[in-house]
């Protein structure tokens, strides 16, 4: 954990993880209060993966995200205010209310987009890497996906092509043990998703997805390899989602004991303890940092709540770039 000795880096990681935690905890609370509609998938418990992986790439690099994507977006620099406004369905949101929680994108930040279809972002990420190859622009694309997405054909097709063509992409599997209600090992042929790398002749490594330094080290190595032109890697990050698949999920498919066991391995509690015990920051400093993030999330909620709804006439815009009116009408 050499990186842990850099106090500033550790605090930055903590701040990013804490921001993701507070954003999704707020989304969960707002949903329970009836203030958010639709489906909300939180990544509470998985913050070390999105933050550790995004820390391994540059601002000019790209990420492809998933339905459980708030953390990826924030970790790549997404604006919590615009994200929260999108969750509210407001005109000021990232997608002007057209996309919601599962479709946030910001190409200026390298965020290719979250995705509501499990596994669909994998070929898209490989295609982004292909674009970098064709243009010789040197970016690396991080592809986030869950354990269950590795059972989609899109995973196998895209990893095969990326490996065959040595594309600059890193496949980051967030193994949170469940595809909705199904425990992954009940439906998967290998104990570790990382083993699937062997089929495609690429490195497959397992990281502790609840240890941000473990994720950062594994993804950094994979990013360096991709940047050198040596092709993709598969990094499996073992983690756990504290909440259900969606907010309101009764979670009858897993035991209270199992959830409590994983909560004792909470990545944020763990990093906080490491920082304090390592003397990297004092309790006051940590409290101040957390208070600042809390205010940021509160401000995002205020911004979202006070923002206007999109006008109903906006429902027919942005279907097409050209000929929009004509194409929508006919």
């Amino acid at each position, binding site marked *: 954990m050499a990186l842990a000795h850099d106090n500033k880096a550790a605090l930055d990681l903590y701040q990013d993880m804490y921001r993701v935690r507070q954003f999704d905890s707020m989304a969960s609370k707002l949903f329970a209060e009836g203030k958010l509609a639709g489906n909300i998938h939180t990544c509470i418990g998985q913050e070390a993966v999105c933050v550790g992986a995004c820390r391994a790439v540059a601002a000019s690099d790209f990420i492809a995200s998933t339905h459980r994507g708030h953390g990826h977006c924030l970790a790549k620099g997404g604006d919590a205010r615009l994200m929260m406004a999108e969750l509210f369905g407001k005109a000021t949101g990232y997608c002007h209310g057209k996309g919601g929680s599962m479709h946030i994108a910001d190409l200026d930040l390298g965020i290719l*987009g979250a995705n509501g279809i499990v596994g669909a972002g*994998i*070929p898209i990420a490989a295609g982004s890497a292909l*674009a970098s190859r064709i243009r010789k622009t040197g970016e690396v694309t991080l592809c986030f996906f869950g354990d269950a997405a590795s059972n989609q054909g899109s995973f196998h097709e895209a990893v*095969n*092509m990326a490996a065959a063509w040595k594309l600059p992409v890193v496949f980051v599997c967030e193994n949170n043990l469940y595809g909705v209600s199904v425990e992954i090992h009940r439906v998967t042929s290998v104990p570790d998703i990382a083993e699937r790398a062997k089929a495609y002749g690429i490195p497959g490594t397992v990281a502790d997805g609840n240890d941000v330094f473990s994720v950062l080290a594994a993804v950094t190595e994979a990013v360096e390899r991709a940047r050198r032109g040596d092709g993709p890697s598969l990094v499996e990050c073992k983690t756990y989602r504290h909440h259900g698949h969606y907010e309101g999920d009764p979670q009858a498919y897993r035991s209270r004991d199992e959830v409590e066991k994983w909560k004792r391995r909470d990545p944020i509690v763990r990093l906080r303890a490491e920082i304090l015990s390592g003397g990297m920051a004092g309790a006051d400093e940590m409290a101040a940092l957390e208070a600042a993030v809390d205010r940021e999330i509160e401000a995002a909620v205020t911004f979202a709540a006070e923002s206007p709804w999109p006008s109903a006439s906006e429902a027919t815009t942005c279907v097409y770039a050209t000929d929009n009116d004509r194409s929508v009408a006919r």
Partner: protein
Amino acid sequence: MRTINYGKAISEAMHEEMLRDESVFILGEDMGVMGSVFGLTRGFMAEFGADRVIDTPISENGFVGMAVGAAIRGLRPVVELMYVDFAPLALDQIANQAAKMRYMTGGKVKVPLVVRAPGGAGRRNAAQHSQSLDALFTHIPGLKVVAPATPFDAKGLLKSAIRDDDPVVFLEHKFCYAMQGEVPEEEYVVPLGKADIKRPGRDVTIVAWSRQVIFALEAAKTLAAEGIEAEVVDIRSLVPLDFETISASVRKTHKVVVVHEAIKRGGYGAEIAAQIMEELFDWLDAPVKRVAGLNVVIPFSPALEDAVFPHVPEIVAGVKEVVR
């Protein structure tokens, strides 16, 4: 003017656009070394290199998805699905990703992608290599859908499709590849969303696209010999649809037959017929007639295949039903 075939016209469109714009590239099965199963990209790999003419594995959802990713990043991929019958393998990327990306992101992301897909019956390719899936694509908002009948339109429309900032499904008819037609040497484009009156006439409007335009023109000749002057409107683009040209024709002739090769049930002809009923009912002297494929799987045997989709006699008979 010089004459080339429809396949050559499509090939020229891709070649010219690749020369014109470095962001245009080609990927699909057998596009590189082989030059595509229909020979449309022969020589391209040697000229443009393996990064711009990419032989993919047989992974339709995967490589269409990669094209979507590259398009999001600002390239202009031209993907070939060897047969439109393979589109269902890639339908998530076409329908859920490419088509919806701009809208879902509130206009932040564009997908300038062309999916070329040869389709159509008549070549004894049987059930899984002969379909016309036009209506499948027209039912997905966010896609533009184009289906040219002639070499001139194929070239000009494909160039427009490649330059367009939206995903375009470009439906080619396999039976048209060898058909000859006049195509100028000089640069031109045909805009998407503009119909073309392929033959003027006063008595009846035949609305058609793709190969059925060729049959409709032959039918019009037969009808002319019997004193019926049919106007053949080739819509060329299904989405966006140039309803104004259809409307002007129907207001002139007061009778209309909509013709397509795809099966009749839920076909795009039903949509066109409904729009005419809704907006031009008072101008009609007869109900709108559809002449379309039977609601069956495309059979193999020539004796069966030729019986399941319209040819000239069915169009002639359809016209005579509305022109009494």
